[in-house]
């Protein structure tokens, strides 16, 4: 004990919890401190395991009820981690010990995970307790918000995982310390919101029909794994089986015997979801208990009603197809081919089973989510039906349903009409062209012009016959066109490729500069404001989202500094191009649009500064 305390430093630490545990098949004791985990073998003075907990990344428990009670811890630098088995003689005490360890370790691990997401570089505000010193929370931050920030970091991490280019940009800018984490995420809050929305969606129930398939194990035995989940699903799907279970277990037979006999019985084979007859080699033995629950095959023209007690289901009167059956009885005809369910009688039970399954699923999902909406409608209908059923049939009760407002002749149909304000804009007959530079002609001149023009079109034949193209002009034209083609050909010739390393350097410079430009303009341009005062002044009046004016000015200044550095970076790249064998002019031309944008941003910034001072 003394050696241990000296080794752990001047501060006296009390162990948070301790428990007897086995590690590497050796008995010993496990101690948990605020910052470290220690395991000491019985009888050996030096502890075999003594790790700091700031790198703990995950924790695993063995199943409840499975002995021995195990706990495994993995670390970021030690993926294999350590595995301990709590060795108290009583299983319940071992479980208690493990629970206490788990309770202490969970917040630690969560904190570590959150710290992992925040960049480990210096100068990163906003991230909670960075890796070292898990015991000291950031001053002023209340405990409740660490959980929020942890969740926020989870979101950020999942967004980065989903978009690899964004992750590359993040790594390049944030982890090298050029940009802070909050700055990076400020413009991208929409991404985080979308991620949160998609994580909050819950998956509904699976809709597959319950159909456990027997797997042939070795030795020719047929094996079906019965899990509690499967049992639950079977009871939901086939209430008959549930009834059989309730009545027979544990009275008539044990649970395992029940399942064995069930899977071999005719009841199971009747309920299967395929019409394939089961493997011919297995005989379906008649089973006295299960055969009591066999229902006759559901292949009559009308389906067997499934509701409990066999009461007629309430069908909305407007949809009831059988409502007028009494009028058609005397015909003596069989029901038409379209009114007969199914083409072959053998298929009917299967189809009806599918229908029942789908109905149950829809009712279940509606019941979970849309209960309020469905209930209101249902209640109204039910009330109305009851009133109609008990009393006389009152047709007025159904007016709300059959009257469709769209069909009622309204005088002004609502809707936005796509009126084109100036339809003349879109037709060619608009003659309004303003030509400022027209020579003013006197009427005499214009008539003369017109007359000459008209003369030109008469008597084409002589000029056609005497047409002789000018030879020199023709050759000149040919030369000029050939040179055009040659120039185009040369321009389209593919240039030798730039070596990939150099190209990567160019692209990183470009993306970094883009990000700075984005941040700069985000800081300079007016932000989206919540409540703008309509007078147009958003100074003082109206709340502005994001940072205050001074912070924005600071940020703009910082970004302007970075942008000024971009010019030098480009020059360095151009100089480097010579060495790599790439035409430096090409590189400069490639960066020309970027430099244009950077110059524009810097000009705006200097103008603002001049105006302010």
């Amino acid at each position, binding site marked *: 004990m003394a050696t241990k305390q000296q080794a752990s430093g001047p501060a006296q630490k009390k162990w948070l919890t301790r428990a007897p545990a086995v590690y590497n098949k050796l008995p010993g004791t496990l101690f948990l401190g605020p910052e470290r985990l220690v395991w000491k073998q019985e009888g050996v003075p030096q502890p075999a395991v003594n790790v700091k907990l700031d790198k703990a990344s995950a924790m695993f428990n063995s199943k409840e009820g499975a002995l021995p009670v195990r706990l495994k811890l993995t670390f970021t630098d030690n993926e294999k981690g350590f595995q301990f088995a709590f060795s108290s003689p009583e299983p319940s005490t071992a479980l208690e010990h493990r629970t206490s360890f788990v309770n202490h370790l969970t917040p630690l691990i969560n904190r570590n995970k959150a710290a992992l997401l925040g960049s480990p570089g210096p100068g990163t505000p906003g991230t909670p307790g960075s890796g070292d010193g898990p015991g000291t929370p950031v001053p002023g931050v209340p405990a409740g918000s660490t959980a929020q920030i942890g969740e926020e970091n989870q979101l950020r991490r999942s967004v980065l995982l989903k978009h690899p280019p964004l992750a590359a940009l993040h790594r390049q800018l944030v982890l090298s310390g050029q940009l802070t984490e909050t700055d990076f995420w400020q413009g991208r809050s929409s991404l985080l919101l979308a991620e949160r929305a998609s994580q909050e969606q819950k998956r509904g129930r699976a809709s597959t029909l319950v159909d456990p398939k027997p797997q042939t194990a070795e030795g020719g035995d047929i094996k079906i794994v019965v899990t509690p989940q499967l049992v639950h699903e079977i009871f939901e799907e086939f209430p008959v089986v549930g009834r059989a279970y309730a009545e027979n277990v544990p009275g008539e037979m044990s649970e395992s015997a029940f399942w064995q006999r069930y899977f071999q019985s005719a009841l199971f084979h009747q309920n299967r979801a395929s019409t394939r007859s089961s493997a011919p080699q297995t005989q379906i033995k008649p089973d006295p208990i299960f055969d009591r629950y066999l229902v006759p095959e559901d292949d009559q023209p009308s389906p067997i009603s499934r509701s409990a007690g066999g009461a007629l289901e309430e069908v909305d009167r407007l949809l009831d197809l059988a409502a007028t059956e009494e009028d058609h009885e005397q015909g003596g005809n069989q029901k038409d081919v379209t009114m007969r369910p199914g083409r072959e009688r053998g298929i009917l039970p299967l189809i009806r089973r599918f229908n029942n399954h789908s109905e149950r699923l829809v009712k279940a999902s509606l019941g979970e989510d849309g209960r309020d909406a469905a209930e209101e409608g249902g209640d109204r209908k039910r009330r109305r039906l009851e009133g109609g059923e008990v009393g006389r049939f009152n047709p007025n009760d159904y007016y709300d349903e059959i009257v469709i407002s769209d069909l009622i002749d309204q005088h002004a149909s609502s809707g936005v009409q796509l009126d084109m*304000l100036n339809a003349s804009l879109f037709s060619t007959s608009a003659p309004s062209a303003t030509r400022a530079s027209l020579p003013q002609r006197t009427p005499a001149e*214009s008539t003369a012009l017109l007359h000459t023009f008209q003369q030109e079109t008469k008597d084409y034949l002589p000029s056609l016959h005497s047409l002789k193209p000018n030879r020199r002009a023709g050759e000149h*034209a040919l030369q000029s066109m050939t040179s055009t083609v040659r120039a185009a050909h040369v321009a389209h010739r593919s240039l030798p490729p730039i070596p990939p390393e150099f190209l990567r350097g160019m692209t990183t410079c470009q993306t970094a500069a883009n990000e700075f430009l984005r941040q700069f303009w985000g800081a300079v*341009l007016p932000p*989206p404001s919540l409540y703008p005062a309509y007078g*147009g002044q*958003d100074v003082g009046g109206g709340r502005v989202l994001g940072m205050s004016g001074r912070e924005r000015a600071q940020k703009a200044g910082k970004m302007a500094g970075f942008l000024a550095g971009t010019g030098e970076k480009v020059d360095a790249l151009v100089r480097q191009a010579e060495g790599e064998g790439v035409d430096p002019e090409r590189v400069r031309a490639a960066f020309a649009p970027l430099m244009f944008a950077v110059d524009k941003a810097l000009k705006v910034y200097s103008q603002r500064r001049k105006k302010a001072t």
Partner: protein
Amino acid sequence: MSSPSHLSLILDLTPVPWDALSHSTPPLRLKDFLAQALVFINAHLALRNENSVSVFGALPGRSMILYPPAGSTQVEADENTFHVFGQVDEGFMRSVEQEVEDLQEVEEDVPPALVGALTKSLCYINRLSNPPPPSNPSEAPPPPPHSRILLFSVSPDASVAYIPFMNCIFSAQKLKVAIDVCKLDESEVIFLHQACHLTGGAFVPITQREALLQYLSMCFLSETETRKTLAVPTLDKVDFRAACFCHKEIVDIGYVCSVCLSIFCQPVLECSTCRTKFSPDTLLRFGNMNLNGHAHTHSNGTVTA
């Protein structure tokens, strides 16, 4: 077996630009131009038996088809001329003469209805591509021809007609019709550049006007498929700027309505095409701009940095 080819010419017959052209250096008179155009048409018809041609004319404010002539005309056969050539030349020139005769006055302000002629030509081509079923059902219908349009331009762009012109270009793309442009004068035609580029045609500005025929036969005589193997000189740099919808001026940077994608040079309170009202917050963000159509102007003040 390749399919026959149809050539559609569009001529701009406004008096004023032609007058200017005939006085420029090197001069080009309408007579010479028409003669060279006729030779070009004959050459196209001579390439293949089933080739066909149609000519449309654009006059100030209206456009019409010049060949095949609207009414049926009787052409007397000249023994010294190949009858197909004679027919086409005679019919075409007669229509031109008639239309130009009908001009009453020189309308200087009205731009030529180039877009109208282009639309009519596209409709004609569409009709050719979907021929009515033959009267004898056992015959196979003749294969529809590949078509292209050659536009002779002598005047600058009419930016009024930007929207209909773009619609024409899109329908030409659908019909797979290439629009070639032969530029006879030196004015700016941004829309015609775009038309050539978008439909895969050739844009050729003519410098040696006396050798027009040389240009025509070198660049425009070949069919669309043959052009893939020949190297046809065309203008590479295309100016893709658009015209704003409010003033019909060409803009570099503008504001686009998010509903109907119409372009404005200044921020507006309400889009003129689809009547969408934009929120005042967005407009405030654009800083010290005077809002279009806003009666009382209030300066938004300097934005706090």
